[in-house]
């Protein structure tokens, strides 16, 4: 495969995790390079766009900032649709938010799979690492093990406030998304018609296959 012309990629990325772990702050830091201690609580879902240059190609990341309160979980099926990757965030100063990580991962995996049947690439973010008390994340080996057992492609200690590791985590996620996209293209049966290529968007709705 050759890239002799400029290619563009658009990836939808979910940012999920418990209420108040810093999802919005991470996105604002990543996209707008600033930080405020009090962003408004996200209701439902919010959106942001980040454009990256990646090996002479343009990568557009559509970041979906999803409300952390449990009741909005009723809508996550709609929110997750067509996502290619995810960050699951917890707050290192609140163990309960870490315990919720597996719940979020299960919710994600049960509602979203890629065309090849695999789960989307997910990176775990241990946020607010500037506030210390990260007894949990001190044990790197344990965290690695946790990631392997729960299907995370990696984990990072982050701080939206101090701008620690956010670009690194995003690069890691993008790397895995691109890899899984290549994997999907290769595993594709040649004579299958991919609806995505036919039209601008769509193709995931089951009723499309029955269209007249």
């Amino acid at each position, binding site marked *: 495969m050759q890239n002799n012309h400029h290619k563009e990629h658009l990836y939808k990325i979910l940012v999920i995790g418990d209420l108040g772990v810093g999802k919005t702050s991470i996105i604002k830091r990543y996209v707008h390079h600033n930080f405020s201690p009090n*962003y408004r*609580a996200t209701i439902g879902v919010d959106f942001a766009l980040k454009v990256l240059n990646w090996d002479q190609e343009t990568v557009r990341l559509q970041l979906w900032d999803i409300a952390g309160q449990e009741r909005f979980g009723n809508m996550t099926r709609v929110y997750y*649709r067509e996502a290619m990757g995810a960050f699951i965030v917890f707050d290192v100063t609140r163990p309960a938010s870490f315990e919720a990580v597996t719940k979020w991962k299960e919710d994600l995996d049960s509602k979203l799979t890629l065309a090849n049947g695999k789960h989307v690439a997910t990176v775990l973010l241990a946020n607010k690492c500037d506030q210390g008390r990260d007894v949990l994340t001190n044990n790197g080996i344990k965290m690695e093990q946790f990631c392997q057992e729960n299907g995370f492609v990696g984990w990072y200690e982050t701080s939206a406030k101090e701008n620690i590791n956010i670009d690194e985590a995003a690069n890691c996620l993008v790397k895995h998304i691109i890899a899984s996209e290549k994997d999907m293209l290769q595993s594709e049966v040649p004579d299958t018609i991919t609806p995505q290529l036919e039209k601008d968007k769509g193709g995931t709705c089951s009723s499309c296959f029955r269209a007249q």
Partner: protein
Amino acid sequence: MSGTYTPAPGGPFSALTPSMWPQDILAKYHQKDSSEQPELQYDEFGFRMDTEDGVEPRSWLGSEGSPQREDPQQRLRWQAHLEFTHNHTVGDLTWELIDPVLPRSERLRSLVLGGIPHSMRPQLWMRLSGALQKKRTSEISYREIIKNSSNDDSSTAKQIEKDLLRTMPTNACFSSLTSVGVPRLRRVLRGLAWLYPDIGYCQGTGMVVSCLLLFLEEEDVLWMMCALIEDLLPPSYFSSTLLGVQTDQRVLRQLIVQYLPALDRLLQEHDIELSLITLHWFLTSFASVVDIRLLLRIWDLLFYQGSLVLFQVTLGMLKIKEEELVSSENSASIFNTLSDLPSQLRDGPAVLGEAMRLAGTLSQETLEAHRHKHLAYILNEQAQLNNGNNTTLNTNLNKVVRRQSLRRKSTLSSLLFGEDEAEALKSKNIKQTELVAALREAIARTAEHFHCLDPRHSST
């Protein structure tokens, strides 16, 4: 409590209820010599006028929609109406003498549509919404509610605490833990969570409560919220299932087919899920979505007519921007235009005018019929999705149906069968709904049975 410093007429904080005037900031305004610029500027509602967070500066001096500029004609019309309906002569009438519920009439509706004079809003909102009636007839007092809900340790209290400074961070009354509005917001949210166990704390209600707190005393805010939850909005709007507000998103989508066919085609063509954007609008009744001056006009009407207004206003706002939307280049720009749409509309009369021109004839009955249908669809979809692990929804449904709530009406049965009938046919409806729940459970069990028999799942 209303201390020594008073806002300048039309100046910062002047539109707030006096007990919310932030004395520390007002003191600084007073001490300042005229040559010195204060470090932060606030508008008459207490919002910061900087450009941080991409918030556009709000100008208060001589701005068009300033509530300080009460139209004397409109004020006179209101006074005349109140005097006429209370048989009093000019000058005699005080708020104590005005009934807690105003008789509904075309005249009253047209006055509300024309806007309530800002200085009369606290008293009239309480009367239009039914909140004053609730306050006067409630068996439990605000004091008792607060006492009962003062437990710090519950997970609800913790969630509320996390959100206190994330509700209206750009307003001086809610920007720090020592701000005047914050303890009030905490008490009202905890009180509501205690009063409605099936709702608990729902993110989004904080936005409504904080906006109300700018203009009303905290006890009145609680009763206004009771009126919204029990009467003005459909059941299960804020409950843990969010069924009511989800249903309304489907209803909105159907109304767009009818009222805005060009927009409907556009949304279909670009596969845009409108509820991603509008859920927020409905859940907060536009608080935190539109400029506060427009919000006040929408709420005047909302408190009189209820949730119908949310649909009319949404349709009106979409209509105003329909051309721009239809001429958009791609999905992304449509999506952005939709997201930014409410914050770009400032002109109350224009928005309400368009809303009524387009959807003024939409009736509550039509709305309820749509709601029943779409709620049934949603429940059906959830049942199908939950075939694999059917326990969640059934327990949810049972919880909603069999719950013994302190406050009435926010039950699923009233959502299914309509509010008025629900009062009259409550026991019957609960029985019916329980039958439906039992039937669903039976179907789910049958489905599970066949699921287990399916050779594809025979790992056990």
